[in-house]
């Protein structure tokens, strides 16, 4: 998010409003001020990613925060689609409650960049999100052109 010309949009796909709010708060607390677009289901998120004029496919780099448990489709399906599309270089951070070994392996196999388990303990959760925020502030995101 080092490129002031092309602000990186954070696309958050998370069905739990509370979680989304807590994640956003803690990312803000880490000093990240990028725009955060929140979607509670996979369909509208995919629509934004590929068809919206402000979406990453048509405009600007993005970083995706992805929950695996969604009402309309599985997070791994979304991950699979993203990584098999022109958006394949867009970093995807899987942020979910599942710490199943097989699930983690599958996500990395599908090309997820970071896998984070949501700690149940709120303090740990807040710390994890803040650390993710700090992490986001230093990583280099490929630009839209490169992504194309």
């Amino acid at each position: 998010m080092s490129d002031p010309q092309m602000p990186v949009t954070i696309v958050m796909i998370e069905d739990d409003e509370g979680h989304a709010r807590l994640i956003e708060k803690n990312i803000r607390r880490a000093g990240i001020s990028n725009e955060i677009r929140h979607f509670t289901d996979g369909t509208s998120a995919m629509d934004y990613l590929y068809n919206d004029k402000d979406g990453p496919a048509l405009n600007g780099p993005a970083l995706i925060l992805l929950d695996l448990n969604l009402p309309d489709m599985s997070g791994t399906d979304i991950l699979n689609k993203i990584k098999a599309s022109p958006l394949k270089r867009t970093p995807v951070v899987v942020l979910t409650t599942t710490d199943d070994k097989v699930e983690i392996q599958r996500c990395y196999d599908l090309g997820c960049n970071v896998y984070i388990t949501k700690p149940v303990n709120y303090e740990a959760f807040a710390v994890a999100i803040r650390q993710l925020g700090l992490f986001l502030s230093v990583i280099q995101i490929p630009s839209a052109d490169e992504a194309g």
Partner: protein
Amino acid sequence: MEITERLFNRLMVGVVALGFLALLTAGVMAGWTVARNRDYTALVNHTYEVQEQITDLRLAMERAETARRGYLLDVDPRFYDTYRDAAGRLSATVERIGVLTADNPRQQRRVAQARVLIARFISLLDDSVGLVRADRLELARENFENDQSVGTVRDLRQLTLQMNNEESGLLQIRDHGQQDTGRQLIVVLLISGVIMLAVAIISLWVILRYTRDLNLSRRELGALNGNLEATVQERTADFRRANEEIQRFAYIVSHDLRSPLVNVMGFTAELDAAAKPLSELVDRVEQSAPELMTQEARDAVRTELPEAVGFIRSSTQKMDRLINAILRLSREGRRVISPERLDMETLLNGVHDTLRHQASSKGAEIDIKAPIPDLVSDRVAIEQVFSNLVENSVKYLAKDRPGLITVRGSVTGDRVVYEVQDNGRGIDPKDHDRIFDLFRRSGAQDQPGEGIGLAHVRALIHRLGGLITCESMLGQGATFRISLPKTLNPERGASL
């Protein structure tokens, strides 16, 4: 008709016995017929001999008569010799016939008559010939005209004819007998043949039928066997699916329960954080403008808000622990059981080492009574079972005596029985079943814990194909007895 094995055996024995009986009858009959034939041949030969002798007798008689006449006509000594020879033959032949027909009283009577007639005949002829030899030829010729020799000869002829007829009759009777025997033999052989043919056909039919039944039942058995295996596999698969379903359900539920819990805890933290500036505001207001301060606002910020947050916190933490317990049990259920040979003394000493500090701090002693029988089972599960049980014993000591925890084991058949015994506070017998249920505890709730230890232990023991029982009285210590298969069959273990 369904041929049972019993019926088949009986039928076969009966049929074969009948066959052999027929064969035996035929054989005996044939033997008997051969013997009868031999006897008959001998008898026929005998009859022919007798008839021959009778013919000889008649010939001799005729020759004697002819010789005498010749002698009377022409006194030639050759006629006399011939006469003497024939007369001798006559006597000899009649004796011979007498011997041959000794078994026939009718013939014997005739022979006796013949003897008398022959004696008379010979004496008549002797007289006649004697007169010729004494040169009284005229007298002899005269006597010849009227002596009784002609009548005697006729009688003798008659007699020999009767004798011959008698023998012929006998021959005919014997011939009939012979023919009857032959016919009997043929009939018996025919019947035997028919019986044997029937036996062969019945045997063949029965064997074919039985073989077909046998093949049919073998195929049915094979199909049934296949079905049975399929059924068992189906059931096992169903069972496993149900088990997996439960595990998955527990896993999903616990995860889905965690999700809102994160919110509750998170926003409680936010609330707590939000309470801080409020509290500061109340402090400031109290200092700078006490007239604005109300008791309700002070209480709300200083007491009620922190209290509410505190209760929400402790409750969510408890819920979190419970969810984690379910999650752990569900994970435990999903874990793959891998049996290996376990050196139980080493394993139990390891358990002892991890609990040594805890035990010594409470003044309890752990005694592992060697020898402990080894077994083939899952290491992690067995370790968890024993550390849970021993830890429980260490936790629930009696306050009035130093703790002593004893672990021992023995082999019973193909199972191993382990005991974890303590002298602790004991468990009320009415709680013996309850303590193995999830989240259920017994006695004074003075120890930390969620009530999952024994539930976990029982789930593990069941998965390992074992049983666990509790023996205890309140205040008198407790004994947990575990019975496990000496060698764990992973198929069977996993299905439990």
